[in-house]
């Protein structure tokens, strides 16, 4: 019985890592599509997002099965409940990446110097996701906290991107729509950063039992 439980737990662990890896991949794809204006690549993002949705359902099922059949306690329970919360955030990351890719197709392959800070921002958010997943893999609270702190970098980038887009609109009012699309993308990336923060917080919870400093 217990050995089956352990096996299911490691299966959960493995699937979570796979899902995290997919999230990293999907953001990288969306960012690359934006950088190169590659509409074909942008269209490939949607199927990967579908895969992430599929993974979410599979992990959800596994978590519920574990909760019902094994009635875990303490650390195992924390790990499973944290997993349930994390996959929601991961699924949202996939959705945001798909939204970015959709906007890239609207832009019709247009790309320019304005995208520079957005790409840097995307890189920072990928870094955050990587750090949170690494933190989960290694049960590394310090790394999770680093990922949470890293969110400030992404937020700073967002402010920078916003002001540069305001000046772009002021200079070239005809590019207003383009600027707004870019702003949307920047906002989505900023959201990805927030989701990565959530994941990192749940990693901290699953290891220490405290979420945002509170004992749940």
């Amino acid at each position, binding site marked *: 019985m217990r050995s089956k439980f352990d096996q299911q737990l490691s299966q959960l662990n*493995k699937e979570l890592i*796979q899902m*995290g*890896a997919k999230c990293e991949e999907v953001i990288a794809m969306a960012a690359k599509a934006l950088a190169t204006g590659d509409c074909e690549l942008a269209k490939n993002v949607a199927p990967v997002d579908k895969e992430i949705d599929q993974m979410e359902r599979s992990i959800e099922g596994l978590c519920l099965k574990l909760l019902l059949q094994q009635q875990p306690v303490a650390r195992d329970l924390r790990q499973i409940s944290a997993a349930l919360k994390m996959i929601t955030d991961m699924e949202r990351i996939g959705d945001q990446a798909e939204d970015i890719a959709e906007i890239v197709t609207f832009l019709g392959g247009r790309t320019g110097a304005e995208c520079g800070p957005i790409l840097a921002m995307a890189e920072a958010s990928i870094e955050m996701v990587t750090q949170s997943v690494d933190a989960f*893999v290694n049960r590394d609270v310090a790394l999770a906290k680093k990922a949470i702190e890293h969110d400030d970098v992404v937020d700073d980038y967002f402010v920078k991107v916003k002001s540069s887009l305001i000046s772009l609109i002021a200079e070239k009012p005809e590019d207003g729509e383009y600027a707004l699309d870019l702003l949307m993308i920047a906002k989505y990336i900023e959201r990805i950063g927030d989701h990565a923060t959530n994941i990192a917080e749940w990693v901290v919870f699953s290891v220490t039992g405290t979420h945002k400093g509170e004992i749940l």
Partner: protein
Amino acid sequence: MTKKIFHSMFFVASVAMLLGILLIMGVLFAYFRTVQKNRLVSELRLTAAAVEMGGEAYLESFQVDDCRLTWVGADGIVLFDSQGETADMENHADREEVKEALETGKGESSRYSTTLMEETLYCAKRLSDGTVLRISVSYASVPALLFGLLQPLLVVFVIALLCSILLSKRLSRKIVQPLNAIDLDQPLENEAYDELSPLLTHIGRQQREISAQKQELEDRQDEFYTVIENMNEGLVLLNAKGIILSINPAALAFFHADTAVGRDLIEIERSPEIEKAFESAAQHGKSSLQVSRSGREYQVNLNRIGPQNDMSGMVLLIFDITEKVFAERNRQEFTANVSHELKTPLHSIMGSAELLENGLVKEEDIPRFIGYIRNESARLVALIEDIIRLSQLDEASAPEMEPVELYELAAGEVESLTQPAKAKNVSISMEGESVTISGVRQLLHEVIYNLCDNAIKYNVDGGWVKVRVSKTADGAALVVADSGIGIPAEHQDRIFERFYRVDKSHSKESGGTGLGLSIVKHAVQYMGGTISLDSTPGVGTTVTVSFHKKESRP
């Protein structure tokens, strides 16, 4: 142990007891029966004598508790009985002992009553008047005796049981104690029962064998670990589920992991390519992919262990193929460069020749065009010569080393370059001391010529070139310093590559093939020297070639 001993002990006690009872019953019962019979016979004789004398009156006074006396008439009618009324009694004539006594004078018999479990012994004697006197006594039979003995027997059984338990406990403890005290790690140093010594010897031998085998296994494992830990290639061993069984430091460095054994591969490496390669290897037996990581190129080979439907694991081998990839790229670049460099002058030659052929060139311009053709051909020849020289150096089939007077040679080169230097308004000077080194005159000429030529070519108007030859601790140094345009830091690593030019657009203007420094590098390497570069853009360049006395051909 205790149980077994108890069982056998109790069994022995019970059997002994039973046998004892049977013996007593069998032997003593028969003895007592004889005694009883003899007594009966003598009593009968006495009684008979008394009856003969006293008649019935004696019989009336007969008082014996344990015997029964019966007087039977010659016709069998009971005349007297010491127990009971004679009237109620049937005719005794057909009783065995009476019959016998009537016929022979005396008789005896015994009868057994199952209801009373008693045996009755009869003795009869014919009196002189023809009547028969009978005496009988009853005594308990063997089963009845046994039945009577049941209670004491049970008590004895219980005592035997308790004794057996106690004794067996103590005995087994005593027997087992030396067995428990046996030290199996040192089987031959025990003084237990002699019967155990073959077993102990056997154990001792097996222990020696096991420890020898264990030692051998450990040695082999150590060997294996030493090998995989010291190899440059990364090696990872996975089981069928992808759990890492063994990993060497090179692979750990590749995955940027601290610990990995016992973890899932996906925990330390989650790139989709490697996962795909893993699946493909599980399907097809092997797969390989190229990964670039932290600026280096790696090839990862995956090999399945065991058949497809019963995979027992996977081996990952990680090679650093940066050099190979780099060399490949160099070769491709070199081929592209060679074709390009060869094509350019040929096109000039062909264009000029076509113009001349079609008579499109004015009479007075003809010498100029022919000059073009000649110059470009010369360039082509120079290029091809350079390439040949380079490939000769590559194959290391250059001539033998000989002692060369470096200063003299350098001075000669400087002398011959004075004229071209003057044309570019650059001063060239020579200083230093006489040094003899071991080298190849032709190659040294190439080295000095190319370095000085570059120093002049890439110099500023009114600049200077200084050549210095000096002795060093372990050989000699040739320094060519100039006040030229310098080489930007990002190009300094690459200027020794074939066809590499800092400023690609000026290649035509300054002439040269782009192979000069490459030849210098190869020549210096051939002679076992080293070359170093120190340059600041806009200030100048200093190239130092060090020759080592020890002949250390690579």
